[in-house]
């Protein structure tokens, strides 16, 4: 279970997260919606451990691990995965090599044997077929020359391979056409189960037509101002964020 209490964080002295309280029980998918600048991406970065954010109050634990005291790679080893809003390019680093290195790093931390190149390729190819990704994406540099949609699909492929227990999806739907959106949603839905939970950060409701969340939270001004069932997303679509703000 992901448990966030009173989380307050600032960047360059400016408060972005202002006392977030949130619980995502194991096996549940929660969505966080909010207007631009409400702190959605900051929340995902603070949870994943990016430098440059100062946590001034509150706590965040995942299955009892104090996330905020851990290095990013240690958080990854607990099963936390962040699908980036803007996946990063690594020139010259082959996608297959990167994925295998990451997978083996996680396997090592779990005390599992590493996969050799052949074993890895077998697993990777299976997952790629499921995501309708062309195999040559394995040979290309990580995200180098990928279209926006390819980058997002690559994030989902990584998620499928690394098999996290908790995924943070940071606006994974932005910039996707409807076909790509469906592939991404299928990738997430395929992972749904009692051992997988996710926090889906999105600006728009449309992704939630394909991935139906257990709970929806509205983030505004650095705090959760409203929570509800999947119907809350539809309400927002109709009435907009300003209505929530007025009510709050």
């Amino acid at each position, binding site marked *: 279970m992901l448990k966030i209490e009173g989380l307050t964080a600032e960047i360059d002295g400016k408060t972005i997260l202002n006392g977030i309280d949130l619980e995502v029980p194991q096996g549940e998918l929660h969505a966080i919606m909010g207007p631009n600048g409400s702190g959605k991406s900051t929340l995902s970065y603070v949870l994943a451990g990016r*430098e440059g954010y100062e946590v001034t109050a509150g706590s965040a634990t995942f299955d009892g691990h104090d996330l905020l005291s851990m*290095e990013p790679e240690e958080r990854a080893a607990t099963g936390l995965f962040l699908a*980036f809003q803007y996946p*990063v390019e*690594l020139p*010259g*680093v082959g996608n297959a090599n*990167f994925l295998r290195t990451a997978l083996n790093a996680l396997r090592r931390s779990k005390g599992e044997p590493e996969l*050799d190149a052949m074993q890895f390729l077998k697993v990777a190819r299976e997952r790629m077929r499921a995501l309708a990704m062309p195999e040559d994406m394995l040979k290309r540099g990580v995200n180098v020359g990928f279209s926006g949609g390819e980058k997002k699909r690559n994030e989902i492929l990584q998620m499928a391979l690394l098999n996290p227990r908790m995924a943070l999806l940071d606006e994974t739907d932005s910039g996707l056409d409807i076909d790509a959106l469906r592939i991404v949603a299928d990738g997430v839905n395929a992972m749904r189960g009692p051992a997988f939970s996710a926090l889906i950060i999105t600006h728009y409701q449309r992704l939630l037509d394909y991935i139906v969340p257990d709970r929806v939270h509205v983030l505004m001004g650095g705090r959760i101002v409203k929570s509800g069932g999947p119907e809350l997303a539809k309400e927002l679509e109709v009435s907009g964020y300003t209505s929530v703000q007025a009510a709050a």
Partner: protein
Amino acid sequence: MPAVSETIETVQSVTEGAYKWGFHTDIETEFAPKGLNEDIVRFISAKKNEPQWLLDWRLKAYRMWLKMEEPRWPAVSYPPIDYQDAYYYAAPTRPAPKSLADVDPELLRTYEKLGIPLKEQAWLAGVRPDADSDEERLPVAVDAVFDSVSVATTFKDRLAKEGIIFCSISEAVHNHPDLVREYLGTVVPQGDNFYAALNSAVFTDGSFVYIPKGVRCPMELSTYFRINAKSTGQFERTLIIAEEGSHVSYLEGCTAPMRDENQLHAAVVELVAMDDATIKYSTVQNWYPGDSEGRGGIYNFVTKRAHCRGDRSKVSWTQVETGSAITWKYPSCVLLGDDSVGEFYSVAITNNRQQADTGTKMIHVGKRTRSTIVSKGISAGRGQNTYRGLVKVAPAASNARNFTQCDSLLIGDQCGAHTVPYIENRCMTAKVEHEATTSRIAEDQLFYCRQRGLSEEDAVGLIVNGFCREVLKELPMEFAVEAQKLLQISLEGSVG
């Protein structure tokens, strides 16, 4: 365990930025008296039982050296070197070995520790290709030079069946005097520069390779250099001759013990390629770089040059320079033959207080000659890394082409990267291109890797290897893997 994976593991098992190869071997060593004068030159020549012409050649070089000055133009700084305060000859006292069985077991253990496979049996038994490749691995013939003397050359007999000569240069002086005399100093003359003159006067050993007409060398040839003795300079000389239509791939590696003093390594390498011949020369240079405060380390002042004498000849230099306190070297190609090709692929890392001033010279003389330069400089710690390159096109080199790409990667905020390209084009139809970039390892790249579970150092290693990929892919496969590990080790402790 196959020798290759053994080598890799030797490199892999390094921890926390320590120089793995820094041990010293206790072995009885004979020195020449300290210092340098004509008597020392005569002493070396006599020790090697050399013919008169070679002694005269050395003395001529020595007299030239006396009148020369150390180059001051490289972007490196170091206290004055006292050339009288070093030994110019050090050799294990055992008589020269006739076969591997005669080699001092202590020496063999040293090379074993270094992961250098000298035992032919291991290779003959067949090294299994790893799962990544379907290629069959060929054995590598090794010439090992310990301090000043070649201690063992493997696979000689098998190579001799093809007419290939692969031996130490001392042996070549005795067994193939005509060849040595015909070519020695024709690519790098005695008076070429300060260090080349010094080398010509006191060179002690090195490798000699001769590939006859039309022969494709069936295996990688490799020389492994080790400085062991204290206060000794190492001056090896390598000469490779590829006759018409022949092909050879040669690799050299080097390490030294950790010492507080600086030791001088001034080598000369001469390559000659005739019509349609190809020489591929790869270097993985890992001399002791000194400690994090800049104490000790090798001064690597090396002259390497190739003559592409024949039409359509090709010379390709690939270097991975991770060691040495100071590196000063410019492996060059003089493209004399029409349609000849010169290539230079380089990765140079400077970490801590290391300094490197390295690059290449491509001299286009023949028609339609082509050259490619790809240089990747990585600076970390307080390292200073300079690419210095010359592309020169003579008036007759019509339609010559050059492409140069210089990329620098900075890690941290106390290092430096410098690019100094010289272009002298005297031919209207020539085309010379130069591209250069400087970048840092971005914070978002590191975070992306770490979020996927990689440690910070693994992330740096991965990103740096990606940055160097164009160069690393030019290395023979066995060594490419090793070089990748080496890059990562060289950068340990450079972030965070």
